[in-house]
Structures are given as structure tokens and as C-alpha cells.
């Protein structure tokens, strides 16, 4: 005999320990809370933005254990023990990260809403190319190299409603060329 499905439970708190930008954060959360909402609503780290909440725009991009993900499509409780880096952990207003500096000098944004996600993604993209991870436009799967086409393809998960794409590309290119 198969048991009948249980009714939806009354939500109870689940504990989770994150390390966010190097600081431990112990939280007790309704399991429905996404990683994005935990960062924004529970840890007041409002740099990461909610554009679509469905994995389509990239505004919520953060790094988890060194890899970029969409924080809106993950539950906070799935990240017990994980290290999260948000835009707040990348440079400060007085000491900008080179990627932030390049976005400023190239006008890589207008309203700025997509920018934290763009910057997290851009830093990860350069790292992914360095690690030799191929992309859809990589001609020879076994030899990955930097190009504008690679940047366009790899940044396609970050939409910009203001259409700052050309300047975003220029900013990332400059960081790569300076490195």
C-alpha cells in the first residue's frame, strides 16, 4: 500500500551556517528562503539584485565556493557550510576591485541594477577561461582562449535592461589585457 501524500507542513526554522564574504553567518530560516533572499532580507546584503527571480536575468549572480550561480534558484538551506561571495565582498568604495574600476572608467552601466551580477559574473568568466573551461563559441574544445566572442557568449546569462553591453565588454577586456 502506498501512503497518501502528507499535507503541506507548517514551516519550521532550519539552521544553516554560511560564510559570506569571509564572515560566518548562522541563520534559522524557513526552508523556502532562497539564497538571494537570505542575503538581501536576512543579512542586509542588498548588493545582489532580484531581477526576475527565475534564473533568467543574472542580476542575482554570486559566487559559491568560487563558482558563479544564480542565487535566486537555490535554497539557502542547501548551502550549509558553503562560502558565498557577493558584490559587497569584492572591493570597497575606497579600494575598488580592478573589475569595478574598469566598469566605472568604461561607463559599464547606466541604472546600475544589473551591475553587481555583471561584475560577479565577469570576474568568474575570466577565471573560467583561465581554467580552460570551453564555451559554445570555442572552436577547438581542447584549446580555450580569450576573445570578444568568448566574452559575449559567456556573459549571455546577465541581461542589462539599459543595454550597456558594449561598455561592459570593453571593461572586462581591459581587466583581461591588464592582467
Amino acid at each position, binding site marked *: 500500500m*502506498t*501512503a*497518501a*501524500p*502528507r*499535507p*503541506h*507542513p*507548517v*514551516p*519550521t526554522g*532550519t539552521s544553516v551556517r554560511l560564510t559570506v564574504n569571509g564572515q560566518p553567518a548562522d541563520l534559522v530560516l*524557513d*526552508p*523556502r528562503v*532562497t539564497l538571494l533572499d537570505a542575503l538581501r532580507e536576512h543579512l542586509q546584503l542588498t548588493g545582489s539584485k532580484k531581477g526576475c*527571480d*527565475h*534564473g533568467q536575468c*543574472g542580476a542575482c*549572480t554570486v559566487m559559491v565556493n568560487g*563558482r*558563479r*550561480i*544564480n542565487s535566486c*534558484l*537555490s*535554497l539557502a*538551506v*542547501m548551502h*550549509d557550510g558553503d562560502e558565498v561571495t557577493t558584490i559587497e565582498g569584492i572591493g570597497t568604495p575606497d579600494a575598488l576591485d580592478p573589475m569595478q574600476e574598469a566598469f566605472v572608467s568604461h561607463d559599464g552601466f547606466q541604472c546600475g541594477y544589473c551591475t553587481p551580477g555583471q561584475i560577479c*559574473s565577469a570576474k*568568474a*568568466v575570466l577565471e*573560467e577561461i583561465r*581554467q*580552460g*573551461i*570551453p*564555451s*559554445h563559441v*570555442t572552436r577547438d*574544445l*581542447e584549446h580555450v582562449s580569450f576573445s570578444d566572442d568568448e566574452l*559575449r*557568449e*559567456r556573459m*549571455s*546569462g546577465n541581461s542589462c535592461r539599459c543595454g550597456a553591453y558594449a561598455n561592459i565588454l570593453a571593461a572586462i577586456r581591459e581587466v583581461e589585457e591588464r592582467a
Partner: protein
Amino acid sequence: MKPFTYERVSTAAAAAAAAAANPGAKFIAGGTNLLDLMKLEIEAPTHLIDVNATGLDKIEPTAEGGLRIGAMVRNTDLAADVRVRRDYPVLSRALLAGASGQLRNKATTSGNLLQRTRCPYFYDTNMPCNKRAPGSGCGAMDGISRQLAVIGGSDACIATHPGDMPVAMRVLDAVVETVDAAGKTRSIPMADFHTLPGDTPEVETVLKQGEFITAVTLPAPVGGRQIYHKVRDRASYAFALVSVAAIVQPDGTGRVAFGGLAHKPWRVEEAETEMPNGARAVTARALADADPTGDNAYKLSLAERTLALVLAEAKE
């Protein structure tokens, strides 16, 4: 989202046991499809079993000379694996044509196989949909069906499977490995894994309630020119209108599977004997039973032309 309870399991056996104990439960892997649907309350599990810590994140050689891909291997890692890039490039290419870098870092092998359709009426809870609400009717049939299936559909549903990776796995003759709560294992060839909609479009695979995918195995490499060509509405980050996964040998023989055409990756082995005779000969047989709508009949010529492009590229 509807409330649910949450647990983490550390073995495949525990995952299957937890699901058997709770019929309202769902496994969560990357979560990139399930959470999207839970936010819309199209999926409403009462319990989530987090299977990320089951240790199934390795790609290992098999005794037969193939590869065993753990269910939790991320799409990025599978596409970048040196053996996959060298021996199964059609699989790398299909993975890299899907979703975005962020999503591929999270999406798993098993989750990708089980992602649900992108039929717009399935996603719109104001619309009838036999897949989402069995018996409510099909909104797409007389609606906007440009993205939907041209073959293998039924009066109940003409949805497509939206995945890219599964099309490559079909052409590679991959096998899905599972375990159930009794510890019984099964090996399901990709050909049999996804089902056609028939009268029960809510059923999408042959998996039983609570059956857990542990791995996907690839047979020994078959060589050849391996190509995945995806046609979509924009250059990146969009689902396929039509895709072709092909393996072409130097003598012109080979294999081909199509994405974007049906409720499952579409491959007709008998049609492959026509490969040396060109694309039209292949699609004439592989798509002979097509029954498109006015909106999506373009997919038939698009499939033929995409295959023609792939066959020409294979000769280069």
C-alpha cells in the same frame, strides 16, 4: 512556494528510502528547474530531499571502455571533462549550447534529464494544460504552438522536451542507472527513458515514484565527426527550436538525433541508413509521421536544412 519540510541525505540508498517513505516528496539537485516551478506552484512537493551530498559527483571509466557519469556531476564539469571533450565532443557541445554559465555550474546530469517542458501554457497557471492539470485540456493545440512538437504528440499534448544534453546522450546510446528503495537497480537505455505523451502527458519518463538516478553511462567511444547544432531565436541563452546531434563516420554513415521536435529526443535508427544519401533522405524517413500545427510546420524544413548543414560540416 507551498511549505515543505527539508532533509539532506548522504547516500543514494537513503535518497530512495526517503522518497518511498513520503509520496509527496521530490529530490532536489541543482534546483534550477524545480525551484523555478515551485515558485509558480506548478510543482508543490511537501518534502524536499537534498541529494547534492550523495557523493555521485565523479566521472569514472567503465570496464567496457566507456564513462560512468555520476548523477550530481554539474553540466559545466561534464562539458569540460577532458575525456568527454576528446571522445564524446557531441556531449560537450550540447551541454555548452544550453542555458547560461551560471546555470550550468549548478545544473546536474540527472536534473537536466528530468527538466520539464517549456510549453508556455504549462507555465501559465491561468491556462488549461493536461500536463500540469490532467484533464483540463491543452491550451497549446489551438493556441501559439510555434515552439512545440511536430512528431510523437497526441490529442492530449504536443509539448517538447527542452533539453540539449539528452539529445546528445540519445545519439551516444547512453544508459540511465537507477536504484529504488528496495535497493533494486535498473539500467534504462536513453531510447526508452523518456516517454511520449499519449493519454498521460503528466508522465514523462519510465521512472517509478521514488526511483533515484545514480548515474548515466556512456558506451566506449565511437569516434567520427561529432556535431551538435542548435537553432534558436537568439545567438545564446535560448531553448532550441530545432537541434541536431550527429556522429558522422568518414564513409558517410552515422547517427543522428533531433531536439526540439518531440516529447523526447527524436531518433529513428532505420532512417540513419540514409545518411550517405543526404539530409532530405534522412528526414523523409525520420519525420515521416510528423503531424505539425500551422504554427510549427516550419520545423520540418528547418530540421532538414540543419541536418544538411551538419552533414556538410562533417565533410570539411
